[in-house]
């Protein structure tokens, strides 16, 4: 491609869009370090009188509790979701053509078309009837359920690519299916498992509707809901509100910088198939 003219239109569009993305992000970060007085008087695109008082205010407003709640709910939903999806995907791929497995696969495939928003009212009813309303488990269980269809699809596609000879030779060595699943398929599926875990983890971490509908106690709030509530209470103090946005994003940004390759590669593979 080196002999060709550069892709002017593509470059222009990309850098224009990059600017559109960076400006708000940059503005949020520098504003979060300004004292409230400087927010109204200083140039919005330049740093002024940098201070940590906003961050201090946010952390004193129970940020750590909300952060821990988000960690609990995200881990509590993602780890089991990935494990049960992996087992289901393994059974669907390796379990032959049994009617029950095919039926299960169909249920999961149809589940892809079922948005959480559409069933939130019955989910609310079920959670109340199970006496789980206003608990972390109320968020975890439906989050696991709605992670399953896509996870099973991606993992099954991946397990299908494992050469059959590997399974056969393990069986020759006397391994049970259970052993084969964990000692052969699980390590070989790792890239897909990481992808699915990151993607579903991100979905749960950023979820808003479930926490809004299924919890009410302030001490149970997860981050997106806490941001919204904080904005309601401290809306006048814009730098503090923006500091809460930065704090809520920072952990996930740090993880992204570390796991970027997995996330991007997985999303590309998972969705362009």
């Amino acid at each position, binding site marked *: 491609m080196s002999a*060709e003219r550069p*892709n002017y239109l593509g470059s222009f*569009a*990309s850098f224009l*869009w*990059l600017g559109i*993305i*960076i400006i*708000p992000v940059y*503005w949020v970060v520098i504003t979060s370090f300004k004292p409230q007085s400087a927010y109204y008087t200083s140039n*919005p*695109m330049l740093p002024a009188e940098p201070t940590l008082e906003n961050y201090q205010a946010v952390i004193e407003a129970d940020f750590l509790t909300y952060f821990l709640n988000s960690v609990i709910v995200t881990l509590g939903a993602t780890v089991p979701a990935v494990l049960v999806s992996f*087992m*289901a995907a393994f*059974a669907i791929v*390796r*379990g*032959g053509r*049994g009617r*029950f497995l095919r039926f*299960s696969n169909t*249920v*999961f495939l149809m*589940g892809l*078309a*079922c*948005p959480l*928003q*559409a*069933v939130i*009212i*019955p*989910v*609310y*009813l*079920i959670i109340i009837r199970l006496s789980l309303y206003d608990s972390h488990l109320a968020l975890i*269980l439906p989050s*696991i*359920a*709605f992670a399953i269809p896509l996870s099973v699809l991606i993992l099954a596609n991946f397990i299908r690519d494992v050469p*059959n000879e590997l399974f056969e030779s393990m069986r020759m060595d006397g391994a049970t299916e259970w052993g084969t699943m964990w000692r052969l398929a699980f390590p070989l599926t790792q890239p897909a498992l990481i992808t699915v875990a990151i993607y579903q983890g*991100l979905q749960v*971490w*950023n979820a*808003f*509707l479930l926490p809004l509908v299924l919890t009410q106690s302030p001490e149970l709030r997860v981050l*997106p809901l806490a*941001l*919204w509530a904080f*904005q309601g209470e401290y809306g006048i103090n814009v730098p503090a*509100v923006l500091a809460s946005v930065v704090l809520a*994003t920072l952990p*996930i*940004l740090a993880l992204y*910088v570390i796991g970027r390759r997995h*996330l991007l590669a997985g*999303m*590309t593979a998972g*969705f*362009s198939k």
Partner: protein
Amino acid sequence: MTSGSVSARQHGSLAWLVLPALVIFTAFGVIPLIGVLLLSFTSWNGIGEITPIGFENWVSVLTDPGLVHSLGVTFLIMALSWLVQTPMSILVGVFIAGQQRYRTVLAVLYFTPLLLSSAAIAITYKALLDPNFGLGASLGIPLLVQNWLGDPVLAIATVVFVVSWQFIPFHSLIYQGAVRQIPASLYEAARIDGAGRVRQFFSITLPQLKYTLITSSTMIVAGSMTLFDLIFVLTMGGPSDATRVLALDMYLRGFRGNMMGPASVIALIIVVVAVLLAMGVQRMGGKDANESRLEGA
């Protein structure tokens, strides 16, 4: 599939492995889907008794101009989002697929919106677009000083912009992945035939992206039908219902208005319309979508 009837019998015992996933998905996915249908024929305020009332909710919702309005708003935002996101995502996706130099920097900054919650994005834009203290006002750029969220037309435009801001990185990512799968031999052949970049784009890249275009469009359509978080925090449906999309309409009627019956009717409309639209998009792509991709690979 390598497993024939013999191995099917051998592996028959694997069925239990699917049970945990099936049970939990049935409990919180399948049963609620049936539940929402049943609830649409009942009267329930969210706390008290659930009483069957027949078709009353259906009649009241379907004859309510409010439904037509939120359906219209949803379709408008869907169409505009598609028009903004698709060309931009393709351009950017093609560009970053061919660039080695900027990839690392681009990947960290460019994909930041993928990580942010809708709540964080909405809060940021609310502050940024504030007509008195937002970016435009403090920079003194009159063009940017508008009542972005207070004027009905501007509010729709703002929602479309913010939705695009959030999702263009995602869609360009899947286009980028698809562009990388296009065999280089196609481009070499085209270059030997003397095709320029623009010609190559329209004769090779775009046709090869057909299947990804369908996937991406399906996601935009389905995503627009369930758009909730962002609008809830950004405008709460305002000003005066100008951005009251279906999912928000459902939430407000059900959880704020304590009328779960009519809200369930809207929930069902969301599912049915989303599935019909997604099937429509898939069909527009034609049945050869899979085959043409295989030929290319």
